[in-house]
């Protein structure tokens, strides 16, 4: 008996400790809950990467480089904790699409966010097919006329504004001098060595800026872009290239902006709903199941401490849907207890001793609990796969809730029930183990 009482005490202390840790980390704001953009306010942009000019094996590489470049650029503008990630989407008909997801907390001006990213230029060097200079290059003929890009923004080390020396040493035309990194240097050297006499195009954002002929091999890893720039244009181009030139063109396909005020309201009402929801469930359990109901309520509080602790540790990004899932899970967490207590009551009615009845109640309800929770877990897993980031938040909280509640509702409440050691005998005992409106 003292063993189980010790176990109950340990569980209670651990639960209280976790609860205290969650509370104090919020009170001192040392480790706040991670809030999704719909709660914290901010902007999410989804881009499609156009990889038509990239050869198969370079796709992953280009996407990584794309992510790094955008991340650099976003950081440059002082957005706090931005998230830049790549994702492969598809219409399931075999067609896949490489996407870039940019999340900018605190940025609530969609247009500003788009401009912030949109100013990053796409740089490509592409070799001309054939030897004759095309009379006209338009965006529709580019892919026909040129080979896929060999050098892109990811090969760039730096860009610099210079003035070409004109006749008699008079500076006239502003140009941008590109310096490649070691990879780019090698590729450019090989390209120029093997293709002397042919043309290659320098493209910025898909537009041919200049299409010079290769006169000789260039081993030092520099190239000059000259395209009738004004000094201001050239300066801006050099600056933008330095911030990062994109390895592939990107196209905006979806945006999502939520103002901070709206998010703050959602957090407030979500919190209120959570508190009242817990209270409603506890009152019901106390009213209907009395002593076991009180124990289920303690287990429920433990469940809440544990789940919130996990949210902080993993960490789980909370969205409005996630909060809804948590509130829903509070209602479902006591379901296992209800099954167990109803079963225990039956066993008591069949004339078993209190201890045996509790024991059998737990053992026999287990199959139903297991089976019904598996179906919830199936849903959570499918939802996680289905979901956009909002729904993933729901699925994660929901799945986590089901798993943790199985632990608290079964192990924890059983330990407590045995530790108390109250017999369902006499008027008081029978009352405590009774249920419903019967006294």
């Amino acid at each position: 008996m003292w063993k189980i009482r010790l176990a109950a005490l340990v569980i209670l202390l651990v639960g209280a400790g976790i609860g205290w840790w969650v509370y104090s980390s919020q009170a001192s704001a040392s480790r706040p809950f991670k809030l999704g953009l719909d709660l914290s306010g901010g902007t999410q942009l989804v881009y499609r990467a156009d990889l038509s000019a990239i050869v198969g094996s370079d796709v992953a590489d280009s996407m990584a480089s794309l992510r790094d470049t955008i991340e650099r650029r976003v950081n440059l503008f002082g957005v706090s904790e931005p998230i830049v990630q790549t994702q492969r989407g598809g219409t399931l008909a075999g067609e896949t699409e490489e996407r870039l997801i940019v999340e900018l907390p605190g940025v609530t001006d969609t247009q500003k966010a788009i401009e912030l990213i949109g100013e990053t230029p796409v740089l490509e060097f592409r070799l001309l097919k054939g030897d004759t200079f095309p009379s006209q290059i338009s965006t529709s003929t580019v892919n026909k006329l040129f080979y896929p890009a060999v050098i892109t923004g990811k090969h760039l080390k730096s860009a610099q504004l210079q003035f070409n020396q004109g006749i008699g040493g008079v500076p006239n035309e502003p140009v941008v001098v590109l310096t490649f990194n070691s990879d780019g240097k090698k590729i450019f050297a090989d390209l120029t060595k093997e293709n002397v006499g042919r043309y290659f195009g320098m493209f910025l954002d898909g537009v041919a800026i200049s299409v010079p002929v290769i006169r000789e091999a260039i081993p030092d890893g520099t190239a000059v872009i000259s395209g009738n720039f004004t000094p201001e244009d050239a300066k801006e181009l050099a600056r933008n290239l330095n911030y990062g030139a994109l390895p592939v063109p990107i196209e905006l396909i979806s945006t999502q902006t939520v103002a901070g005020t709206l998010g703050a309201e959602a957090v407030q009402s979500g919190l209120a709903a959570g508190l009242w929801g817990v209270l409603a469930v506890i009152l019901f359990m106390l009213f209907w199941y009395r002593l076991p109901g009180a124990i289920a309520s303690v287990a429920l509080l433990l469940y809440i401490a544990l789940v919130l602790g996990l949210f902080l540790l993993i960490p789980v990004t909370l969205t409005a849907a996630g909060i809804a899932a948590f509130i829903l899970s509070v209602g479902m967490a006591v379901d296992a207890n209800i099954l167990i207590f109803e079963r225990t009551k039956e066993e008591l009615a069949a004339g078993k001793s209190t201890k045996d009845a509790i024991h059998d109640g737990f053992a026999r309800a287990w199959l139903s609990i297991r089976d019904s929770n598996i179906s919830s877990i199936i849903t959570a897993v499918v939802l996680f796969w289905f979901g956009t980031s909002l729904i993933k938040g729901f699925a994660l909280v929901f799945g986590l809730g089901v798993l943790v509640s199985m632990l608290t509702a079964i192990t924890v409440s059983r330990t407590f029930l045995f530790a108390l050691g109250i017999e369902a005998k006499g008027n008081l005992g029978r009352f405590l183990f009774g249920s419903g409106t019967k006294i």
Partner: protein
Amino acid sequence: MFIVQHRNIFFAITGAIVLVSLVSLFAFGLRPGIDFTGGTLVQFSYEGGRPPATELTELLGDAGFTGYSLREAGEKGYILRAGNMSEAQRAALPQTLSGSGEHPATIEQLSEVGPTIGKELRNKALIALALVLLCILLFIAFAFRKVSKPVSSWMYGLIALVALLHDVVVPVGFYAALGHFLGAQVDTLFVTAILTILGFSVHDTIVVFDRVRENLRVNQERNRKEDFAETAGRSLGQTFVRSVNTSLTVLFTLLVLYFIGPASTRDFALTLLVGITAGTYSSIFLATPLLVTVERWRRKK
């Protein structure tokens, strides 16, 4: 057990509920939101009181918006739903909505979904739905694999599936009416609600079926002859209270979520409320009575 005895009455009631839901679904149809069609959703408000909709209609027309819908939201705002904006339209949006500064507007929420993403989500939603149904059917058939007399194990799965279809049809029909009268649109949260209903509603059905399984085994062990209808009815009576109570606790939290929770999950909470109520109803008044009817058919053959 009166529910099993008078099961035909309850079948008729269930049939009527399903019929009403289906009529609502086909008469009103579901209104797909921008998550699935692609397009733009803007929620905006005016600190100093909103201008009349006619004025906004003019402003939006000038900016080249066509085929949009404008709905009042809250005390001071509107919700605008439109097709995909051009870059110029997006850039000028704050200007457009504030009438070039005449009514300073605050954009509270702006979502744009490209058509390809919409199509992808639509496909994914359908697959997710099918996948959950299939997994649950397989799971129930597996869980009841040892029970094969007098009703075979896959029959339990099939009946649970019929009950599940009922649990889905009712909230979907309800949502179609909600869309017709209050403009609710089908978004990813709605699909989430339906999938959650699928996962949860089957709980109650499993609890009853579990008890039928147990009672059949006990009868066999004790060599007791009992009519199947009797066993099923007894099982239903034994699990009735817990079926209702497990749903009640969830309904409590959903009610709280609906009334004081975030505005963005209000429709979600309402859909779940309807679905979970339907789920509890079907596990008591549809699933077990159906089990008995199926067993009768088999004996007649």
